[in-house]
């Protein structure tokens, strides 16, 4: 629900979208491309460009309702239908750095109280709305070093989402969900596509 004057959020939406468009071509070279922008939402897809063929690793809907009294919202979506995805449908891991300097793979997103996945990071609406983070107010972050801006969020999603992807890992299972084959390719995956006449 929009509780502040929509003109304010809309002007900030236009401002941040204009900033993005200045480097739209540079972002596309990194696999970050704008799918659609229509207030209050911006739809962005992230592709793993080091792979061949280069897949769309994930896509998000960034929502500007009440921005920037409230932070931006990030929802993971199907890049073709824009339907919001549940956590199992994302299937993307990121590196979590451990105190001893090593890392483990954890899900890029976490599940919130609505069972929808969210990015657990200051500057994101779902993070600040989560019961575990009620002490870390958005207003402590707002307008400080661009934290929570569209550019900040895109950079973090790129960094943790696709920048480190260097190979395919394919798991084939039989009808009983038993793993039959695990294939880890290098950067190139030689896929053959056949058109089968009906």
């Amino acid at each position, binding site marked *: 629900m929009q509780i502040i004057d929509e003109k304010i959020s809309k002007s900030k939406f236009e401002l*941040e979208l204009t*900033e*993005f468009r*200045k*480097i739209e071509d*540079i972002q596309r070279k990194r696999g970050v491309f704008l799918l659609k922008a229509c207030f209050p939402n911006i739809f962005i897809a992230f592709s793993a460009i080091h792979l061949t063929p280069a897949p769309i690793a994930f896509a998000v809907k960034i929502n500007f309702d009440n921005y920037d009294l409230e932070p931006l919202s990030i929802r993971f979506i199907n890049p073709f239908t824009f339907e919001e995805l549940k956590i199992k449908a994302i299937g993307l891991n990121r590196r*979590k*750095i*451990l*105190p001893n300097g090593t890392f483990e793979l*954890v899900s890029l997103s976490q599940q919130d109280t609505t069972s929808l996945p969210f*990015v*657990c*990071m*200051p*500057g994101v609406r779902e993070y600040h709305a989560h019961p575990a983070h009620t002490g870390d107010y958005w207003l402590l972050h707002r*307008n*400080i*070093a*661009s*934290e929570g*801006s*569209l*550019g*900040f969020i*895109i*950079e*973090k999603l790129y*960094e*943790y989402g696709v*920048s*480190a992807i260097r190979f395919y890992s394919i798991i084939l299972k039989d009808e009983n969900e038993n793993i039959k084959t695990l294939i880890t390719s290098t950067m190139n995956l030689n896929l053959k596509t056949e058109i089968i006449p009906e």
Partner: protein
Amino acid sequence: MKNQNETEKLNKKQQNLIVIVNGNPCPIIVNEEWHISKVVEDALKETKNEGRNISDWTLKWNDQTLELTKKVKEYNFPENAELYLSLSAGQGGK
């Protein structure tokens, strides 16, 4: 004549970089003798992003993190190289 030569020498050591600060592009002219920390400071000042300590920021080029203590010339940046400067936020579990 000597001053002119020194000026030319100094100019040769300069190059243009584009530092993208949290999505905001900032073209800056750097000297190859500068430390990377100086590049970061200038980019943050230019884009009015001075609210956080410099150690809170990460500068990357081609997805590689640059060391603040190294000099510009050590990285052999091409002209108008695109560097990404972002807050080191969201490292959950660190």
